[in-house]
């Protein structure tokens, strides 16, 4: 993985190309969405409920197939070579769910091995759990007693342990207390510095503006705005968001 650090890749690590998804019931959840996330970048997807953010992530994970277009991870088209593509991605959902009868450490051990890392020790797990802010005394407790925020931290720990070049985060900070939310942002910053490419969906406009290299706003399955951090430097993102969401403006990304 260290090679990623040394030589920056020319092609985007995460990419949506003309991504379109029409559900069986006829709903057009994604309509010709295009974006790129390069190495060492964070891309934040904003958008109201039902905008299509989770749908996008599900296609990246090959949990559903696109109607047309494609998603690529590390240049690999996910629905064509899902197993190959998934080697290069980790995922944290909006509501991390782990095995309730397993302890935090057991869950971490299982998912880390599943992700292909077999040489890690309990100490490594503990270290990462502390890094994401889960107290020591919770490490050996069964997950069934965990709060949503605690589960979220475990999920993030699993993503870190997998150490893949790309990370998909679906509203990762939902359920985290303000302190944990802040710590999480620092963590994302660190991960980006390590060279990871991060795609996250969020409802938190300010955090997004603070941390993301690029911000995209989705509305009804369309990517209605996409701007870089520099472009947004002096703009009022909240105002833009409301305007785009109301459908006043539309620009092709």
């Amino acid at each position: 993985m260290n090679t990623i650090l040394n030589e920056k890749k020319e092609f985007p690590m995460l990419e949506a190309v003309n991504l379109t998804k029409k559900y069986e019931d006829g709903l057009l959840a994604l309509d010709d969405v295009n974006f790129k996330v390069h190495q060492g970048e964070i891309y934040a997807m904003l958008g109201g409920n039902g905008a299509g953010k989770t749908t996008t992530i599900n296609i990246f994970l090959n949990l559903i197939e696109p109607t047309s277009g494609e998603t690529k991870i590390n240049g690999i088209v996910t629905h064509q070579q899902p197993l190959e593509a998934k080697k290069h991605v980790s995922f944290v959902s909006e509501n991390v769910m782990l095995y309730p009868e397993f302890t935090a450490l057991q869950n971490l051990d299982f998912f880390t091995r599943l992700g292909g890392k077999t040489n890690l020790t309990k100490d490594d797990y503990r270290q990462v759990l502390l890094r994401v802010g889960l107290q020591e005394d919770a490490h050996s407790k069964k997950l069934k007693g965990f709060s949503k925020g605690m589960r979220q931290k475990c999920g993030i720990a699993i993503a870190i342990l997998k150490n893949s070049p790309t990370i998909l985060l679906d509203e990762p900070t939902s359920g985290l207390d303000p302190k944990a939310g802040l710590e999480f942002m620092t963590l994302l910053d660190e991960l980006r510095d390590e060279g990871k490419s991060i795609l996250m969906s969020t409802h938190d406009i300010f955090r997004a503006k603070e941390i993301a290299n690029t911000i995209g706003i989705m509305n009804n399955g369309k990517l209605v705005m996409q701007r870089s951090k520099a472009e947004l430097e002096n703009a009022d993102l909240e105002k833009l968001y409301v305007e785009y969401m109301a459908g006043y403006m539309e620009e092709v990304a």
Partner: protein
Amino acid sequence: MFRLLVEKELKNIIQSPKFLATFLTCSFLILLSIGIGINEYFNMMEQYNTAKNLAKTEMAQARSWMALSAKAFREPDPMQIFSAGVNYDIGRYSIVHERQDSKLQNSVYSDDPIFAVFRYMDFTFIVTVVFSLFAILFTYNTVNGERENGTMRLVFSNAIPRSTFISAKFVGSWLGLVIPLLVPILVGLLLLVVFKVPLSAAHWIKIIMLISTSVLYLTFFIAFGILISAVTKYSSVSFMILLVSWITLVFIIPRIGVMTASQFISVPTVAELESQKDSFSKARWEKHYGEIEKVWRARNAEMNGMSEADRQSYREENEYKWFEEDDKVRNEVQKEITEYSSKLSDDVRNRKATLENLALNISRISPASSFQLAAMNLSTSDINLKNRYEKEIQNFRQTFSTFTQKKQKESGGQAGMFRISIDSQSGVKISSGRDESSLNLREVPKFTQPSHTISQAVVPTIIDIGLMMFFTLFSFGGAFFSFNKYDLR
């Protein structure tokens, strides 16, 4: 990867709170059933020995060869510990007499009806009902539960082929359920050794086969549970489907099979059979009397024109010969009747068997039926047990009759005159010739238990084992196939 998923599945089962409770209940029931089985076997063995000795004493009291009757006893088989089958339904002995049809009588249930209540507490019952329930309880949510929990998305965000996942589900569940259940079974086998149940090598082979068949049965329900859990989205739905299927497969279909079978069995009733036999016998005797009359008329005709004194001496001269001739004809008639009636019985028996088999084949759409049939066959408590005994007893009756007839001749107990009224039972008693103080019983043939080789026990189970394998593979294949299209979100 596969191993990791299997380990997780195993851990998930063993760490779940319901596991310990279910496992302990199952273990208790298995051990209880084997314990009761052992106890019951020794009880029956004791009764068997006592009854045999009693019969010996009875025989020793017989005063003539003609009145001598034997009893053939059905020896308890230790395999009944595992599967009682028809063991308690059919009689335990039969009276063997020259002029009496042999029939097994005095079943355990007829002696002790309360016992019927406990009939199902054998090992086979525990496996049929409890193992299957156990399997369902642990597999009903094995696939859709992960979707509901949300763990499925996280699992499949990794490079896991669906086939690996579903295979690991199967293997993991199998190991997590089968291995714990083998523990009490092995302890149960230890009980057999500790209590010194007389088991031959053949018994052990059958026991091992029975346990393997039980494991196969459990495997079917594991595969079936996974299948249902992989074709449904919600675990509440799959639980309902499995519960209904379980009741249908375990309780309803086998019973429908047995009920249909018993419907068929009741077609030719015993009374019908008896009246058919009676009317044949009556007609035959009437014909015989007519013929005898003719013969006597002919004999009288020979004496036409003789003087009264000549007639008298002619009669005296020929009387013995005539009686001999009559006796011979009479014996032939009796033989004809016996043959007819046994042929009739055989016919009915065969017809019954065919229909029974048909009904059983219908019930085999449920692996629970297949399992029970296989267990009964392996435990030699199958539905043919009665026929095997009755056939063997029939053979013994032949040997026994030939022997007593020979003895009657030797002891000069001809007494043909008395034997005219032979077809009524009391007549037999009257005809008991001359008194003998005691009979030498040492040469009386002894009844031997019908032989039933391992292959005779195993071969009929092949179809049932085959069917269970088919249903298991079908379920697993179905689960595999439907999971390939399963919505993982």
